[in-house]
């Protein structure tokens, strides 16, 4: 039931997810942060059961950090490399105990100076995209993206589109997701744009 969607703009990527964790008819938590920071210039918005979400993101992010540490900071993996690493791990686990996670990986390539967004699903498919969504959210927001997206749009315009998507989900989506967290990844790194409820408020 998680909503995950993202869009690239001139100089960065915006990722947005809902903040709800629910089971059956109960909402357990409404301030979850489902966008995990991977390295200094990449993050992953994840949907799926909490267990798989946490295990997969911790595994990928710690291994990416280990790779950079082992090279004494000389090698910084590009978002392309990180996405392929993550996809490979999903593929390896697929026939054993699959991670039931659907992911949008957003990153800023500091060497090529371009933002990149990757769509990755639980069957280990990988696709570079300009904008996209995971889960039921796609049914509602993809048309908004299709209509409003422009090549090289500015940050404010991209954020406006994201907020239009959130508004649409509030109006038309059956599942109540009052809070969304929005993060951007640009040349300065990963930062929180806004959230509905503070993930640190625990």
């Amino acid at each position, binding site marked *: 039931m998680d909503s995950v969607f993202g869009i690239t703009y001139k100089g960065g990527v915006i990722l947005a997810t809902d903040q709800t*964790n629910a*089971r*059956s*008819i*109960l909402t*357990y*938590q409404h301030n*979850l942060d489902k966008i995990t920071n991977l390295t200094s210039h990449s993050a992953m918005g994840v949907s799926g*059961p*909490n*267990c*798989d979400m*946490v*295990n997969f993101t911790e595994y990928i992010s710690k291994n990416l950090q280990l790779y950079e540490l082992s090279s004494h900071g000389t090698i910084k993996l590009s978002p392309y490399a990180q996405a392929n690493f993550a996809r490979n791990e999903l593929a390896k686990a697929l026939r054993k*105990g699959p991670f039931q996670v659907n992911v949008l990986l957003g990153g800023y390539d500091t060497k090529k100076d371009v933002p990149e967004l990757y769509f990755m699903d639980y069957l280990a498919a990988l696709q570079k995209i300009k904008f996209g969504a995971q889960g039921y959210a796609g049914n509602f927001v993809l048309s908004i993206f299709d209509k409003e997206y422009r090549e090289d749009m500015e940050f404010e315009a991209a954020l406006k589109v994201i907020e239009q998507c959130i508004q649409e989900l509030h109006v038309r989506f059956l599942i109540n997701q009052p809070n969304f967290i929005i993060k951007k990844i640009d040349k300065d790194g990963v930062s929180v744009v806004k959230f509905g409820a503070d993930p640190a*408020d*625990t």
Partner: protein
Amino acid sequence: ANKMMSSMTMAAAAPPTQFDVPNVSDPALYCRSNFASACGNSDAAQTVKFAKGTTTLAFKFNGGIIVSVDSRSTMGAYIASGTVQKVIEINPFLLGTMAGGAADCSFWERNLGTQCRLYELRNGKRISVASASKLLANTMSSYRGYGLSMGTMVTGWDETGPQLYYVDDDGTRLKGKYFSVGSGSTYAYGVLDTHYRDDLTVEEAIDLGKRAIYHATHRDAASGGINNLYHVTKEGWIKVHAIDVNDMHYQFKEERESGMAN
């Protein structure tokens, strides 16, 4: 000294690589179809139903943590026991609650206690609540699909202050200010959500914990018995009271009537 430590380290507390499984061709399927989960009525067709049905809650506030539970154990429509201890005292600073399969909860929380003690011996300090809950969540993760049924809250006071984690049988681990688990949890949330504040006094918090359980036991048939309530502070946990919810019913009724008469 470090070398000696590492050679003495055993994997004794880690989940075993060989699990005891039923001697059938597809153990996971067998477990799923014969030991149905705690949610819903999925074990209606089974002769042996798991003991389940409960209300447990825990909340953090400025004066520590309150853990409040009922004590009823049901097997289908039969009340198997009215005096179950649903708060498991893992160690003097860590408490765990029990919801779902009673055997699963008490066994795995006892196992968690073992792992916590080993951590203390190896590291010379008490384990944090975050680590303890992570150990339990990892154990649950490794048994996914095997029909374990456990919804627990791991809580305690460590170096970072009061902590509360919700851990369940599918490996979910959530950090929060308050949770309620069990068939009566929705009723308890009704009272908790309406009256919870960070700045409750200890007396108000105990009263809130008591009332939330009472209201859940009133509406949920699978909850009842005695309200066991614990308070966790920097010095550890103490058991505050064990009050029969029936007595609470008449006491609250009197309060309301005397309030109306005034």
